[in-house]
């Protein structure tokens, strides 16, 4: 146990927008800066020097090598606030939170901001790889003859650009196709996926209605709520959608129970209790502990998005808690089937014994405590922004619940990784 725990003071995000819609012309830097400024405004931090700002983006232009620092320089924070970028696919936001929280726990910084941003609209389209090689060689060529020779290597086909793909480099399968494999393996049905998706929309809409997001979201470019949200979404309407991932009659994953490509940004303000008190800022929750796991989805038996299945039992053992010890569970809804497969794995005695090395499974959770204010299926999922959204949301839920309440966060990520964390209400 660290000497002190980092406090979650609050958060800010912009409403998430489906790709190529409201934020079609906004860059990662635009969105991250706006989100940072919204956070600064909420907590009166104009001109303040913070310990650090840590954030990242999954889809990133090469010019954005110093994305977070540039966002700080464009914001109202003191320019003396250092920043760095990290990237761990969909785990970026939560991993950034852990990084800042750990520095706070160690006393290396007193305050910090963590989170992430992503745009699927303003995608980093790169020069064709063949063309790039010729251009690089041309740049280092010393004689006119070499240059002429290289220019002769230019071909019309090289005009076709490199477009980022939503596929795993080592398998060539899209994330949805990977998830479909896992869904089939665990026998996840269509109806339960649609039920989870409908609940996500219902819960998110209800949370907006009760003003829950009044101090978590700042409108951006005229958008005031996540535009993927369909408050009237139901199992019946979702049942009409055709499967898009998996093959054959038993394919279950549709556009309705999978997250859409989304643009957005989310940040969390963290600090020591002392720093929060000095600045008369609230402490919503504390970061208790966190764990990151990875699985061999390339050659091994595990699904791409199943690493949290392994991360959670390791974390629970370290902190001496059971899966049932939580008031809230925030399991990132990359796909409805991912959440359901994760829960099913924790309930499975054989899996517990063979794969987790446990005598008994972690068991079932009270589903009424799961994603109570909606999650990625309704809000959308700008990859690196999801962690910040979830940390701030859960911290507020725990604060409402009261001191000592506990919440578990579980986020799966590309590359067979998973980041999980425990927060305790303050």
């Amino acid at each position, binding site marked *: 146990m660290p000497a002190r725990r980092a406090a979650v003071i609050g958060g800010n995000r912009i409403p998430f927008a489906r790709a190529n819609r409201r934020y079609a012309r906004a860059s990662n830097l635009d969105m991250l800066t*706006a989100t940072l*400024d*919204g956070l*600064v*405004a*909420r*907590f*009166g931090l*104009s*001109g303040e020097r913070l310990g650090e700002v840590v954030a990242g983006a999954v889809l990133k232009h090469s010019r954005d090598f110093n994305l977070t620092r540039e966002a700080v320089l464009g914001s*109202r924070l003191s320019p003396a606030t250092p920043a760095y970028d990290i990237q761990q696919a969909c785990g970026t936001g939560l991993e950034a939170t852990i990084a800042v929280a750990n520095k706070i726990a160690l006393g290396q910084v007193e305050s910090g901001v963590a989170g992430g941003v992503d745009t699927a609209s303003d995608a980093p389209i790169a020069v064709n790889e063949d063309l790039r090689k010729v251009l690089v060689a041309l740049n280092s060529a010393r004689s006119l003859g070499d240059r002429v020779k290289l220019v002769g290597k230019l071909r019309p086909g090289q005009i076709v650009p490199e477009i980022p793909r939503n596929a795993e480099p080592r398998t060539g399968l899209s994330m949805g196709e990977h998830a479909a494999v896992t869904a089939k393996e665990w026998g996840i049905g269509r109806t339960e996926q649609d039920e989870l998706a409908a609940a996500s929309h219902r819960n998110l809409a209800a949370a907006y209605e009760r*003003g829950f*997001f*009044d*101090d978590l*979201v*700042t*409108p*951006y*470019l*005229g958008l*005031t709520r996540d535009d993927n949200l369909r408050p009237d979404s139901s199992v019946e309407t979702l049942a009409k959608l055709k499967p898009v991932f998996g093959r054959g009659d038993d394919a279950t994953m549709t556009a309705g129970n999978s997250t859409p490509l989304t643009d957005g940004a989310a940040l969390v303000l963290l600090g020591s209790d002392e720093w929060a008190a000095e600045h*008369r*800022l*609230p402490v919503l929750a504390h970061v208790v502990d966190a764990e990151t796991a990875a699985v061999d989805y390339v050659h091994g038996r595990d699904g791409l998005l199943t690493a949290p299945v392994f991360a959670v039992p390791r974390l629970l053992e370290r902190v001496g808690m059971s899966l049932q010890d939580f008031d809230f569970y925030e399991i990132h809804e990359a796909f409805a089937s991912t959440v359901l497969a994760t829960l099913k794995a924790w309930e499975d005695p054989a899996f517990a014994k063979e794969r987790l090395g446990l005598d008994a499974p972690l068991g079932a959770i009270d589903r009424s405590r799961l994603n109570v204010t909606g999650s990625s299926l309704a809000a959308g999922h700008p990859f690196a922004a999801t962690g910040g959204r979830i940390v701030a949301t859960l911290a507020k839920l725990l604060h409402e619940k009261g001191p000592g309440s506990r919440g578990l966060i579980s986020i799966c990520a590309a590359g067979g990784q998973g980041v999980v964390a425990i927060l305790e209400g303050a």
Partner: protein
Amino acid sequence: MPPSKMPADTLRNWSNTGLARRLGAPRIPVLRRYSPGQPLLEGGPALVAAVGDGRFAKPIAALVAEHGATVVTETGDEKLAAVVLDLTEIATLSELAEAQRILTPAVRKLAPSGRLLLLGPVSGDGRHGDHRHSQGNAEAVAVAQALDGLVRSVAKELRAGATANMVVVDVDTTPAAVESTVRFLLSARSAYVDGQVVHVGAAEPAGVADPQRPLAGRVAVVTGAARGIGAAIADTLARDGATIVAVDVPAAGEGLAAVANRTGGTALQLDITASDAASRLLAFVEERFGRVDLVVHNAGITRDKLLANMDAERWDAVLAVNLGAQLTINEALLAAPDLLGPDARVVCVSSQTGIAGNRGQTNYAASKAGIIGMVRALAPRFAEHGATINAVAPGFIETEMTARMPLGTREAGRRVNSLRQGGLPVDVAETIGWLGQASSGAVNGQVVRVCGQSMLGA
């Protein structure tokens, strides 16, 4: 300051060209407005005089001199930047005539954007039975009331951006009590306040440490702060030293964050009509600041419709935002006196429409007139806590909203006042800044119009 989307006053600009002057077109003045570091008065000395034994002339002369202006006691050849006449002790027609003899040469010499300020006795309300102006003395009461007609008329006669206003006092009002009001009405901060009569009572207010930053250290909540007049209020109060809590509906959060950040303040996204809005607001200021010194009720909406076509939704929405929320928050403030700073101030934004009425705005006018009633009712209750509550009633103010008006309507709106132009959001903000000062504690329950002495509702 944000980029201005305000419409240009083309006619005013043209009236100041050489061609317009040769044609003999009336000149629409460019008003002198406040900027930090500016002297209180410019353009000549100030004439400060009294008829009878007025107790205010000397302290005001000292105040003016302290601000670097020369003080004279008689009109000479020079232009006068200000004329201050203490008439608080006059009670007879001959004393009134004496005032005219002083004022007539003085107004001829009044400089552009000059200030005429009268101090008069509060007209007979029977509260001071032993005084010359009690109801038993009809001549004294008549003379006191006569000043009202005098100041309102001379305000209409003055040219080149000069204004005329009056402060009326009680028998026990001290010179210290009127200081912040005199300073405001003489300064360029009151550019668009004209033809107004302000009562300054007997409360003994706190002094001002730094007249350049009269709101230093004060926590100010401004509702409807995301844009327009609300944003100008936040900017102006912050310029004067206040710490801003900028409040607006969650949907306006983007503009709100910008206002909060450029004023170095804090943004609170809150629908003030929500059932728990008052408790959320108070909990917020308590947590972040431990107290509130100034609450500016500025948030307002319009849902225009002729009464014959008015639906309940339009009526209810306007009354809820413009009046209901203010009532609720004010009651909550009175129920939490520990949260009120030692010299707390509440300023409510009413409207000329609440005084004059306007076709198609029964709901809006009702709400804005209601504010005036509320302010008068709550003034004694806030006074119990050393606090005050006042209203400002803007006239035609140049905003994004007026920029969208048809040209004819806009031109008419701009010209029907003594200064022959629209006011700016900052004019409303400066007036609120004055009422928000700790040193303005003797001004309570007042409604101050910021309208360039509009003919509407006058």
